[in-house]
């Protein structure tokens, strides 16, 4: 039952989350902006369209949207969402999270190469490079958090009494949150690492990989990336805000408020910064890694 409530939450709220970001960006640009529900309309439109496939492609190309969506749906089950505890939690579930994302990434890259054209190849190559750095950042933060909570289960690493220990390990947690926020931007192809809005640009990463997908396939991929962003934000919130299983309504409000805050933060970052030049992206990611590493060092130093 818990599984389905989780999925319902991510299915309903994830596109909304993207809608909020778009709204914030529109606000900063001085525009009215599309409706909050525009992502839903987009998805509905895509699900009704038919697909076009390239002669070059094989089954890999068609399987990828399914694999990506399945991977993020599984990932969603590992993360607590407000009052709803993670349905799937066990010691070491962080490896399942990391490797299921890796599986999706592998198929994403080979599907891009499957189209047999240099644009998609470019995206694939960049994804492969930046994901190396992202994975290191992810594990660096996991190490620090696991040391703080003495557990390697995602739910207990980010939940429990962690927010209450801000007094004790404020420095560590600020470093972790900073590092993780950059990771969210990088993993989900947001500015300043990648631009989700432009198409046909030589500088993009994520969008150029899915250039050849259309119809239902593209819908699946867009849904998957929305859910991924939502779930990553869902990992960040319990580190900052205390969610204690006492009052369910209260928890839900805190969770939703936190999500809103993260989406607004992402929107503000996207509106106020420019996309980094491609050869500068790794510097930003290295900064995130350094933040994570200093978090670890401070944690070790304070004992």
């Amino acid at each position, binding site marked *: 039952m818990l599984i389905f409530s989780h999925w319902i939450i991510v299915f309903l709220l994830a596109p909304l989350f993207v809608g909020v970001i778009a709204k914030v960006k529109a606000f900063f640009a001085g525009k009215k902006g599309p409706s909050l529900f525009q992502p839903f309309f987009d998805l509905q439109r895509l699900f009704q369209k038919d*697909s076009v496939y390239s*002669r070059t492609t094989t089954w*890999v190309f068609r399987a990828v949207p399914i694999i990506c*969506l399945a991977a993020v749906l599984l990932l969603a089950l590992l993360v607590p969402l407000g009052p709803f505890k993670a349905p*799937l939690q066990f010691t070491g579930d962080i490896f399942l999270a990391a490797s299921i994302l890796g599986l999706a990434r*592998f198929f994403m890259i080979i599907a891009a190469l499957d189209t047999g054209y240099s644009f998609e190849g470019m995206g694939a*190559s960049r994804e492969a490079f930046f994901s190396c750095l992202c994975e290191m950042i992810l594990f660096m933060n996991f*190490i620090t958090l696991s040391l703080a909570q003495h557990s390697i289960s995602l739910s207990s690493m980010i939940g429990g009494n962690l927010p209450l220990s801000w007094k004790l390990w404020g420095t560590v947690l600020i470093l972790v949150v900073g590092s993780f926020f950059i990771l969210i931007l990088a993993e989900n192809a947001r500015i300043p690492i990648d631009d989700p809005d432009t198409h*046909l640009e030589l500088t993009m990463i994520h969008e150029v990989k899915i250039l*050849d997908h259309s119809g239902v396939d593209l819908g699946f991929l867009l849904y998957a990336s929305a859910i991924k962003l939502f779930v990553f934000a869902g990992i960040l919130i319990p580190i900052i805000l205390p969610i204690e299983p006492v009052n369910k309504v209260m928890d839900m409000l805190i969770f939703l408020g936190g999500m809103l805050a993260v989406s607004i933060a992402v929107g503000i970052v996207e509106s106020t910064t420019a996309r980094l030049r491609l050869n500068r992206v790794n510097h930003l990611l290295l900064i995130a890694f350094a933040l994570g590493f200093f978090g670890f060092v401070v944690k070790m130093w304070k004992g």
Partner: protein
Amino acid sequence: MEKYFQSSWHVPFGEFSLKFDPLSFIFLVAVIILILCAGIYAVGYMRPYASKRPVGLHIFFYLVLSLALIVIVLANNVILFLGAWEIMSVSAFFLVVFKDEESDVRRAGFLYLIASHCGTFLLIIMFFLMASNSGSMNFDIISHAPFPPVLAGVIFLLAIFGFGVKAGFIPLHIWLPHAHPAAPSHVSAVLSGVMIKMGIYGICRVLWMIGVLPDWCGYLLLIIGVLCGVMGVLYALGQHELKRLLAYHSIENIGIVALGLGVGLLGESHRMPFLAVLGFGGALLHVFNHAIFKGLLFLAAGAVIQKTHTGEMDRMGGMAKVMPLVSILFLIGALAICGLPLFNGFISEFIIYFGLFQGIFHLPLQGTFVCALGIIALALMGTLALACFSKVYGTVFLGEPRVPKGSQLGERISLWMCIPMIVLAGFCLWIGLFPRTAAGIAFLGGAFLSHADLLELPMDNIFSPLTCMIGGVVLFLALVLILTYLRVLFLKALPASVSETWRCGFSYVTPRMQYTSSSFARLILDFFKRILFYKRTFPQVKGFFPQSASMSSSVSDFFEEFLFKPVFGKLTNLSRKLDISRIRYTQMYLMYIFLYLIILLVWKLK
């Protein structure tokens, strides 16, 4: 579960004593599975050579190698072990130089032979130190004798260097990327899958005999693991030749095994038997897994090479349409080697990760730092391997053929070649989805290696997460099925149309514009160019209508170019200078020997 087999054997200090224990069991199973699969594959693979080359001789050495491998893992006596070790090394040399008319192949063979004997030289010293400590050549008796700490440290170092040559520890690996691609594919599978594992077996056997070591040994192995893993996969990324890439990947996997062994050693020296069993067990499982998936990958690569008559990845492309079965089998191997869920690599990497995290929690400060380094390195290796194999799969099997279509029609891939690959892929899937048996055996081996009692340890702490993990993976499969059904529902009313790839309005497109293996890896290699000595050369394009241009990129192996080549170059010069002292008469040499004998006699008379 220890069994002995004794037989009389009239060799000084030697005895024909075989011993079967959990450690040898794991290696034995890996050896037998891979030898059989590669052997069956060879029936199909060698067919085109049947009338042109001495295939019989090749098969003879293959069988000798098989026998030597089996004797090595069972040997319970130093002399027997070293004898089988030499037979293995020499027969592998004859297998490598199958195409001996090519100078590259001959060079690779000799490089291998020299490296191998340098290693054996250290091994002889090591074993004699051990034997002199206990007064016997029997492994059992050696293991019962207590080792003084200094001697244990020296033996450990000798083992790391001596066996490390065979295992391919960086910087002793330089023979490996030359020898493995030079050999026929089934031989590469055996060399990479099990022969280099004999180095790991040797280290394990020595660790078992010495018992508890000081903790610097564990740290050393962990550092070696990190170095091998990261450098191995980076070098692999820089390769354009399929089998050479796979050979470098073996170094990475040996690094992962070394990480596991390092964790195990740390657990042993800090008296944490659970940690020791986790580390050793993870390492042993990875040894087995690597034998399976690397064997599969080399066999599949052999099939591709037989079809295309080239190993250059940048001249391939679109092979999935030409050979669909092989492409799926290669994909299984690729997913397994990247440690992705569903397949066996995931299980052993998970156990090693788990051990490293246990190390972070329970080891003293320096242990925490080194284990954290290990985790980060393992994460980096995982994604770099992912980049590497998505590159291989994408450029070899997907996209458009980069050469004209007619040139890809080599020999048909016979059933003899397909069945062994299917069996190996089946093993990958079996361990990936039902890991309990294999992991249980690996932990048994780990417990044997760390002299711990498995029943007293909280093994449920690792088995229950493993079960949950498999539950998650099965859920993922169910999700994939549901979503596939949903997609079919959505698409039912809408016929999917087939067209060209969207080229962004650009009309004159050729397959050569696709990303190649070199361009795909460029970003990563550029990032690491300081340690990889990554070079790209492209002449400046001149004039308004440039006619031809070329670009080449290469990664040079630091240890080969800047360590071994200068040192051995100096040694060669030195030996040239010593040439003067050589006397060109056999009679003179005989006289020297005679004089030497007289001196010995006189010395003995006194």
